[in-house]
């Protein structure tokens, strides 16, 4: 646990960045890879290590950072939804409705999809919780953040190792 304290800090930061509406606009595809890179840097600083980072360590730090980001991101998103009974599904539902109406698909499928999301919307409006929404948030956050974290760790380790090899850079 202590070994991954830097991943916890950076994962927390990335998780927050992913859910705060204003900050979210900055959270392009770089936020999780950058968090993984930063966690490796922090770990190097904390342990005073001048050794090159192995790919195994890099990917582990990336994955753990992604997992923490997913954990905090999901928790905050689901908690805010529970308390406010409002989220992006509610606010974008009219737009989604218009969009679905515009697609060249059979009326049965349109009705089925709209009913599905109408149910999710009503559950959130009344209880602040929807099983389908929770499942979708957890699946998305854990899969995407873990993969992007691993990528950030692998690429980040090469940048750090390059600086160790060429301290003048």
């Amino acid at each position: 646990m202590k070994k991954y304290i830097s991943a916890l800090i950076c994962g927390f930061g990335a998780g927050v960045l992913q859910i705060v509406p204003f900050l979210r606009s900055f959270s392009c595809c770089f936020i999780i890879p950058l968090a993984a890179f930063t966690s490796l840097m922090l770990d190097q600083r904390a342990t005073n290590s001048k050794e090159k980072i192995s790919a195994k360590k890099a990917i582990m730090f990336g994955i753990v950072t992604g997992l923490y980001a997913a954990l905090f991101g999901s928790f905050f998103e689901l908690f805010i939804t529970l308390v406010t009974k409002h989220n992006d599904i509610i606010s974008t539902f009219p737009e989604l409705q218009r969009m679905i109406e515009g697609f060249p698909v059979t009326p049965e499928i349109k009705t089925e999809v709209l009913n599905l999301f109408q149910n999710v919307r009503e559950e959130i409006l009344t209880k602040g919780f929807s099983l389908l929404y929770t499942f979708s948030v957890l699946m998305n956050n854990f899969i995407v953040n873990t993969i992007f974290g691993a990528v950030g760790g692998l690429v980040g380790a090469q940048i750090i190792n390059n600086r160790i090899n060429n301290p003048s850079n």
Partner: protein
Amino acid sequence: MRFQYRLILFIVLLLWFSGIFVEWLISFDNHFLFALPFLQKTYSLVCHQEKAKLLLFNNGETLTCARCTGIYLGLLLVSFIFLFKNFKKKFPVKFLLYSSVPMFADVILYSINVYHYSKFIAFSTGLLLGSVGFLYLYSGLNNLILEMKN
């Protein structure tokens, strides 16, 4: 890296890239409509999805902005090239930094109103970074495979 691994990497990137165009895929199979809201949520984790910055096509728009679409296309195109040739050369990290300069310059210049946001510039600068970025992802995966073997 063995061909099988390169093929898996290409397929993963192809699937990820195809997801961006799910609105277009709906015209081929209506059932993709069920996946649309789920995928919108997926890509919202890695892109701001500002309406004005999405790429438009026949009957829809991409699920990521022009810049992110460029980055993922760059990754996909270079992974396709790597399917046919297993490059073993190590690339200096400065290439990655240089390739990110046009993208960051574009972000800064349009943010301070030197010029208006251009999807073409955003897409091109993303494409450049994505293409070069793949070399480092590939190298990282290569190192990992070598370490696992030892």
